[in-house]
């Protein structure tokens, strides 16, 4: 473990990568990757083997990732991720417009560390702009929410 600036788990990372490669190899074999050079599994098998080899090389290698002295997952990023997942989960239920509005207002306030009228206004204007471009111009049927049916 002499490499510089090792991130926690840099070496351990190669294990899930190798596991992922194995899943790909197995699917390649299931699809007859070895039976015929033109089988549907031939390329997945090749891709899987490349991934497996690369995963081994990564595990043995010295590159841990760039060190920038910042926390890998600051609270603000984690909170935004959670809000984002909540937004997408709520979208089919309450509809795109309210979900996006709430997400924007919350995420902007969170980053600014204060609740402000500005955040609410930006959120409302953005949702209106998205509606204009996507729903009206591009006739994308944004989810309307099953709750209001």
């Amino acid at each position, binding site marked *: 473990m002499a490499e510089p600036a090792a991130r926690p788990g840099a070496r351990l990372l190669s294990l899930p990568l190798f596991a992922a490669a194995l899943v*790909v190899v197995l699917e390649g074999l299931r699809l007859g990757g070895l039976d015929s*050079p033109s089988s549907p599994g031939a390329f*997945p098998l090749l*891709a899987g083997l490349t*991934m497996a080899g690369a995963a081994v090389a990564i595990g043995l290698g010295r590159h841990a990732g760039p060190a920038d002295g910042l926390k890998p997952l600051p609270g603000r990023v984690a909170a*935004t*991720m959670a809000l984002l997942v909540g*937004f997408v989960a709520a979208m089919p239920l309450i509809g795109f417009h309210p979900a996006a509005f709430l*997400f924007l207002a919350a*995420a902007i306030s969170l980053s600014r560390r204060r609740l402000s009228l500005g955040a609410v206004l930006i959120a409302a204007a953005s949702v209106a702009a998205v509606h204009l471009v996507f729903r009206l111009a591009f006739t994308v049927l944004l989810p309307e929410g099953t709750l209001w049916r």
Partner: protein
Amino acid sequence: MTAGHLLTSWLDPSLFAATALGTLAGIWIGAIPGLSVTMAVSILVSFTFAWPLEPALALMAGVFTGGVYGGSRSAILLNIPGAPAAIATALDGYPMARRGEAGAAIGLTTLASFLGGMIGVAALALGAPAIAEVAILFAPRDYLLLAVLGLLLVGSLSGESLAKGLFAAGLGVTLGVVGLDPMTAEPRFTYGSVALLGGIPYIAAMIGFFGVAEALAQLRLADAETVRQRIGRIVPPRAALRRHLPLALRASGIGVAIGALPGTGGDIAALMAYDHARRSTRTPTHPFGTGAEEGVVAPEAANNAAVGGAYIPMLTLGIPGDAVTAVLIGALYVHGLKPGPMLMIETPHLFWFTVGNLTLANVALLAFGLAGARAFARIAEVPRAVLVPLILVLSVVGTFAIRNSLADVWWMLGFGITGYALRLYGFQPGPIILGMILGPLMDASWRRAVIAAGDDVLGAAVEATESAISLVLIAAIVLIALRSFSWGKGRKALPPTPHP
């Protein structure tokens, strides 16, 4: 006489307006990730249904030209390619914006796109029939070789570690072949899910790995200063133009060729031109990956040249050169024409009308591109606290818009969060997207080539040695592979792609 139709769209005010408006709308459509030119043009088919043919075609040509260019805007300003053809542009365009040179990057892209676009139109006007005849000679094995040539780009896109790049490329190939195998109707990696039968759109992956992962990574630095943009000069100095002209011309050539091939389009053209720039430029303005001007000139010249290229087989043979021209062929049907090899013989004015129209669209692109650059560059100055949530909402709605699928949105989110984590460990998103774009092409071309030779790899190899096109492609691969080997010794000297 028919060549006189070149000027139709310049002289008729309504056609002039349709082309210019189309180009302007196209720039915005291209800049918004998830709004694609293909989508816009197919909506226009219904929208212009009752119109006469000419204004409908003018509007679509404008949207096509503007849209291919517009993708570079968000790539430069936000590191989020607005369209797949702008992925390569982000690699050096965004570092330029981080240096406060967003205005210069946009100016350079605009000129490169204009030049590429004009060369594409020139190739269409002067060489269309001959180029189309060569393009259809490309056999499945040649598409395979072309894809291999593109895959050599992994070396340039991997950042600090080739192993990580190879893993990412393998992952991309795997993601690219998820779904129903088009050749045997065998489901791959679907594990019983009907939603997965249709595969994972690579635009969803692109928005996830570039858009969401990038936005989250920027939030990590939210306390850092926003970069003040120096926007005094948009039009690049004459010396810079002279310096980049030869590269832009070569990249345009790549763009025309790849665009004219029926199986490939602007996205692959831009990536291959970027690779070419990287290999052929000895002393870039900055090292590649840290804001080399060459790194934005080449892909942008190529993807706009591919527009003219894609029209070549469409207008001469009725064979679409890419996804957008496929929709344009449908539009011709709807308007009562018979797109096919006789189109040029029976309605030659349509050919010259299109040539004149595309020229006009490129001029409009130059005007709108330069005029709007200053205001656009300011987007890079919007505080991250506001910009990042907006990008995230746009990513969600853009992904949903691809096929109106919530499952795609979840995939995109998964890619975004995984991408954020992988970035921390020095993985680059480029090879994943490259794998997703080239993987299905390689898989299908390889199998087609082998099947055509009677399920015999050796037979397919022998056939390759009997074809001039295949031999040229093989020679190119060997040459580039050999040169990157010697270049590989010096690669330690290359700084890793910087982390935002």
